């Protein structure tokens, strides 16, 4: 299931409601992405006051659904959940949640990892960071591209 929304979500409640009581499921893997309060990749960078996530309504859902379908083609999954927010976000706020459930722990892990890696390079979201020096669009990282490419090509 894909949800693209402006409003916040409750990760604990989402996890509690995910594949409850399904005794075929041996493992659930969940990733939660949060707004950091610094620019770049190392703590200590310029302070970030918040960010605004722009997206492309319609294409976002379409791309996320394609990525979910690709994950289900590759691994035996009982449940998939992707929640991605857009709009104004403060530091420590939630941005994205990805969760997968499978009979197999390795399938749960790999599919969750795959979903966030592919989402990072394929879902049309753009981060505008707000700092004391002004606003700037976050640049895509080569490292994110490399992380996505290790999963090979697919239909999505």
């Amino acid at each position, binding site marked *: 299931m894909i949800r693209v929304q402006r409003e916040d979500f409750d990760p604990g409640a989402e996890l509690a409601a995910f594949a409850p009581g399904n005794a075929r499921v041996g493992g659930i893997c969940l990733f939660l992405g949060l707004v950091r309060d610094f620019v770049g990749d190392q703590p200590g960078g310029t302070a970030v006051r918040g960010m605004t*996530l722009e997206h492309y309504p319609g*294409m976002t859902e379409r791309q996320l659904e394609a990525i979910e379908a690709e994950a289900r083609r590759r691994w035996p999954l009982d449940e998939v959940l992707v929640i*991605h927010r857009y709009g104004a976000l403060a530091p420590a706020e939630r941005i994205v949640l990805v969760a997968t459930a499978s009979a197999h722990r390795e399938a749960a892990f790999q599919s969750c990892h795959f979903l966030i890696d592919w989402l990072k*390079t394929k*879902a*049309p979201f*753009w981060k505008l960071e707000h700092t004391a020096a002004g606003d700037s669009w*976050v640049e895509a990282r080569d490292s994110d591209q490399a992380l996505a490419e290790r999963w090979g090509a697919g239909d999505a």
Partner: protein
Amino acid sequence: MKVLYFAWLKGKTGIGEEEVTPPAEVADVAALVAWLKTRSPGHAAALDDLRAVRVAVNQDHVGLDAPVAAGDEVAFFPPVTGG
């Protein structure tokens, strides 16, 4: 044809969305880009360096050689940074 601009491309064109009717010989993304750049200095600036620009036609990621036609939705944006 509907053309959309996102993130800093929208900042440069000054518009998020426009309805355009390019001439019939504009049959692929590369030709559309060349034609759009003639519309305003903002368009020319947004589409100046195509290495920094990604394209979707009808909400699918495509390359510069992808065909475009009347009725299509074509979007220009930087590499994505969600997640």
